[in-house]
């Protein structure tokens, strides 16, 4: 989808060390924060969540009612009928009606719990994804620079999902609590002694389950991170296939993949062993409870303290409550994961800052003058975390460009060229100095005016998963003629016309694949179609064939010559690009080392000469 995604696959995002710490995390603490998180989610979706809990309680109550109906039917239908030798018709009709009513209400309960509970979960996720992405859009570029792409993508996706995953079993767990209460009341009504068995078995189930989930969860996280490793190795190996193949390293690559695969296998088996132990135990426990109920029940019936129906009912309650009780364990088991997810999500939501824009617009149209005045800029030092600059990337930069003129910025890697282009479009603001277009400080312009007046073509091309047309217009109101004109200027009309759907051809994963040079040309067209008054190109033709680049530059120059084109600031290596310029600014380590025409600079600056000759004539210089 873009150069940067290609370079930083989501799967390869480093597994956060937090993941592995789950096992040692302070449980008390986690549980406290976990409950706070539950409270937040419940508050935000209170109506639907209440409905889902009602559904769940209804489900629980009806499950218990089922046992009660069975006991009732035993005492009022089955026994009397067998004793009297004739069907207790009225009671039978009652029992059938009760069974059906309970079944239908329970079905409604299931719908409430599963469907509405699911809706709560999915809505929370959707809502927080929106919030996180809104933050991504409003936070300044400086913030983006500090956070790796993979991390931000996983914050919006996996972490949001992990945060709310606990809401999947939550309505059921809350319902189960109601169900447990109902079950215990029903048991008490039946027989006090038998209830004690329940009071022992249910908490035991519940405790074992919490223990089980807590033991399992770090192992599951570990396996998950290994799954990420397997994926990274596969990604890397397939991406480097040409190297692997031409150097004949398939067997070694397979060995490398086998190593991580085996680690994953062993981790999965470790998880499996724990599951193998606990699942049968959790299943057996209620059955053992039932046996105990019968042992005690026989005595209770013999002493006349309980009816046989009571025993049957209590036994039945055991079978129906046993499984749902585990939902409480699921919730508590999920909590640590949710808390970790939430911490990551909230670090984005709590991030502060946004670029503020002015309120004025630029009068007139046509090319503008550019006045860069005493510009100094340094990136915030990540080690201090504050706004203090580690080292200034640009120091005291002064550049003036008359309307319609072209200035080239030349300099070695790290001399600050790209930073200058970022400052011109206010992706970042300078610590000192100002940038003025037609005498207006760009910080006074509205965001829309800024984007309209100044267009930048960045070094790394970013294309959207969208059509060619949308990638050029970006939703702006441009006619097809205008789009084609821009494509023509950048020599992209030819290959676009050849695409099966032309302007409507979809790009990206599901659409057409373009070469690096073609992508750069679309990125250029995107800037040109807006007819900017200042065009900033940051090495924007590096992947274009030299011959095609020539044609693009000619077409651009023709516009400029017609007084129709924008004022241009271009960062360049190739001489052909530099040759477009009326003036060259030679940057060296953050300061302007020299400026003048290309010829003048070649004449008087050895450093400049070396720099511009190196690319085009590397071999000649060598020989």
């Amino acid at each position, binding site marked *: 989808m873009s150069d940067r995604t290609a370079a930083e696959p989501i799967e390869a995002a480093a597994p956060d060390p937090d993941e592995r710490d789950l096992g040692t995390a302070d449980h008390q603490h986690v549980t406290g924060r976990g409950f706070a998180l539950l409270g937040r989610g419940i508050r935000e979706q209170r109506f639907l969540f209440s409905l889902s809990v009602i559904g769940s309680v209804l489900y629980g109550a009806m499950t218990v009612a089922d046992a009660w109906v069975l006991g009732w039917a035993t005492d009022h239908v089955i026994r009397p009928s067998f004793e009297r030798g004739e069907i207790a018709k009225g009671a039978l009709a009652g029992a059938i009606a009760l069974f059906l009513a309970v079944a239908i209400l329970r079905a409604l309960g299931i719908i409430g719990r599963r469907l509405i509970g699911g809706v709560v979960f999915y809505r929370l996720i959707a809502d927080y994804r929106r919030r996180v992405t809104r933050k991504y859009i409003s936070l300044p570029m400086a913030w983006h620079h500090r956070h790796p792409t993979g991390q931000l993508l996983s914050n919006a996706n996996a972490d949001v999902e992990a945060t709310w995953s606990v809401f999947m079993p939550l309505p059921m767990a809350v319902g189960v609590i109601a169900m447990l209460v109902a079950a215990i009341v029903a048991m008490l009504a039946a027989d006090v002694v038998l209830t004690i068995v329940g009071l022992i078995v249910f908490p035991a189930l519940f405790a074992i389950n919490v223990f089980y989930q807590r033991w399992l969860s770090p192992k599951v996280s570990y396996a998950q991170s290994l799954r990420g490793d*397997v994926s990274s190795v596969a990604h890397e190996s397939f991406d480097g296939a040409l190297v692997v193949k031409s150097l004949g390293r398939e067997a070694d690559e397979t060995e490398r993949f086998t190593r991580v695969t085996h680690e994953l296998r062993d981790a999965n088996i470790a998880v*499996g062993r724990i599951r193998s132990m606990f699942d049968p135990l959790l299943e057996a426990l209620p059955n053992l409870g039932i046996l105990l109920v019968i042992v005690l029940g026989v005595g209770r019936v013999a002493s006349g303290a309980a009816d046989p129906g009571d025993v049957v009912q209590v036994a039945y309650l055991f079978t129906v409550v046993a499984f749902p009780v585990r939902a409480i364990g699921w919730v508590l088991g999920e909590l640590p994961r949710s808390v970790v997810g939430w911490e990551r999500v909230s670090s984005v939501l709590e991030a502060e800052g946004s670029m503020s824009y002015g309120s004025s617009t630029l009068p007139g149209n046509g090319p503008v003058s550019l006045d860069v005045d005493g510009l100094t800029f340094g990136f915030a030092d990540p080690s201090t975390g504050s706004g203090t600059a580690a080292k200034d990337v640009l120091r005291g930069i002064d550049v003036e460009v008359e309307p319609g003129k072209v200035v080239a910025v030349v300099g070695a890697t790290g001399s600050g060229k790209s930073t200058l282009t970022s400052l011109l479009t206010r992706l970042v603001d300078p610590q000192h100095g100002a940038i003025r277009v037609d005498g207006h400080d760009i910080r006074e312009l509205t965001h829309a005016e800024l984007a309209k007046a100044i267009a930048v073509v960045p070094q790394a091309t970013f294309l*959207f998963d969208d059509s060619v047309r949308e990638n050029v217009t970006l939703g702006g109101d441009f006619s097809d003629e205008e789009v084609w004109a821009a494509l023509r200027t950048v020599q992209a009309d030819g290959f676009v016309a050849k695409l099966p759907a032309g302007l409507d051809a979809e790009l990206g994963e599901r659409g057409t694949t373009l070469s690096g*040079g073609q992508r750069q040309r679309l990125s250029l067209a995107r800037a040109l179609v807006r007819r900017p008054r200042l065009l900033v190109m940051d090495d924007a033709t590096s992947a274009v064939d030299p*011959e095609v680049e020539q044609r693009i530059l000619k077409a651009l120059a023709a516009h400029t010559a017609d007084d129709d084109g924008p004022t241009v600031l271009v960062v360049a290596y190739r001489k052909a690009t530099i*040759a477009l310029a009326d003036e060259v600014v030679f940057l060296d380590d953050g300061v302007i080392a020299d400026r003048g025409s290309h010829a003048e600079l070649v004449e008087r600056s050895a450093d400049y000469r070396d720099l511009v000759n190196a690319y085009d004539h590397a071999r000649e210089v060598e020989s």
Partner: protein
Amino acid sequence: MSTTDTVADTEADRLTGIAILRRGLSLSPAIKEGLGLTLVLAILSTIGGSVVPIVIKQTVDSGLGDGDGTQLSDVAGYLLAALGVIVISSLLAYWMRVRLFVASERGLAQLRVDAFRHVHDLSMLTQNSERRGVLVSRVTSDIDQVSQFLQFTGIMMVVSVGQIIVATGIMAYFSWQLTIVVWVCFLPLGISLKYFAERLSRAYDIVRRTVGEMLAVIAEPVVGASVVRAYAIERRTQQRVDDGIARNLDANVRAQKLVAVTFASAGVAGGLANAAVIAFGVAIGLSGQLSMGTVIAFAFLVGLFVGPVQMATQVLTDAQNAIASWRRVIELLDTPADVVDPGEAGTTLPGGTLGARFEHVTFAYPDGPDVLKDVNVEIAPRQRVAVVGETGSGKTTFAKLLTRLMDPTAGVVRLGETDISRVSFNDLRQHVLMVPQEGFLFDATLRDNLLYGKKDATEAELVDVFGRLGLTDWYASLPRGLDSQVGQRGESLSAGERQLVALVRSALADPEFIVLDEATSAVDPQTELRATRALDRLLDGRSSVTIAHRLSTAENADRVLVFDAGRLVEDGTHAELVELGGVYARLHASWVAQASLSSHQPAADPV
């Protein structure tokens, strides 16, 4: 890809489903081994849950129901037996599960490795970079799906079916009439299950698709952060993201509705069965054919029946998805490796520096037009050849055929006198090496990356090769030397430095014939200078074919081959071809237009 697979007609699906299962198991013998015993254990372990109703029945029948003096000693035997059965079946369940986890994880790990190895044999990998993500998911998420299926879904299915059978058996033992009654109550659910499963499978397909689309739009404000700001398209971007999220939400809710309805119907069927059992049980019981205990036990048995049926309902969709994943992995393994390594049977190339020869070579991608048409050319040993042409002219295809990354559709490529398709890979790669455009590095140390060129290179060899390529000063400037971490795809190094590493790596491999795809992206001049010098030394004394993007490369070559629209149109030295006034002369003119500007007039117009 998944879309067509899972939406496929279910009837056909089920037939192939079994075939897939069989083929899948045969590909992973570790799973198949001892599977019979595991399945037997799975069925046996379900018995534990079934003894409870029996105990209750026996207890009630032994006199509890009459209310007159049943003593514990009367039922102690049953209870002890039941206790024994529960404990034993739990142990069996533990044993079964461990066996299952170990066997399936072993089998699938092997399948993963096999699939990974196979992918490297497919030329698809080097031809179509867009397919790489898909190939990664074959060895990751698809196999995870199968694992999930084997360990949970599949076993649940087996267990559920087992439980249904066991429950039916016990019910039939007590009363065949009531058994029929119960089955009749579940019949409508059974019939509609297939319909539900299909709908669910389609619903989840849509969910998966919307997830993919959502991930793509969520990436926009992150990866395209600067474009979003520079073009002030915040609102539009947010709209796209919101739409993507909303579509995903809709799809999830829709799927959830189906799940809830399916579950609810199983519950209703259960209630129906309960009512019917009481009504018919009493009626049949009064006719003297059933005891009271049997009727009560039956009500419990219905519960045993509803559980597995509900489980089977849930499991059915997962099973379909898992089978689809398994099929995709199997299909990948069944894709024949198109460029086959003759291996041991292959010949070896003679020693000494070899030339190359193309004899009537034509190449086309499957179902595509010819990319290269009837190319005939001979390259002498130690000749330095530059290949030029516009994008899509066939020059890259030429290079890939020469290194046997692909095989020609027609014609023969020879090294010396030997047809390269007869040479074992192992030998071929010691002679010919393709150096790709971008110096792709692996996320490891610099040393590890260099060892890709020669596994057993010594430290001295490594240092020496820097010297031979004139890169000693660069090597000395690296703060951590060979132990420097290069980062993901080598991103800790600059593009130019990555190229340097690629050159050193190639020099270590020491092939006699180098095929080089020249880098196009601009790098900083100092590194550029180093790279040019290193390259020059690397090519010295070897045969080489360079896909040239620069004037200087073509100018300095012994010979220039010019491709246009899949044909070799011009062949000669730089001077000859400029003289000729054809395609090359035209390309050259535009190069000259750039180069000649070096010290003359600083025109606003480059023409």
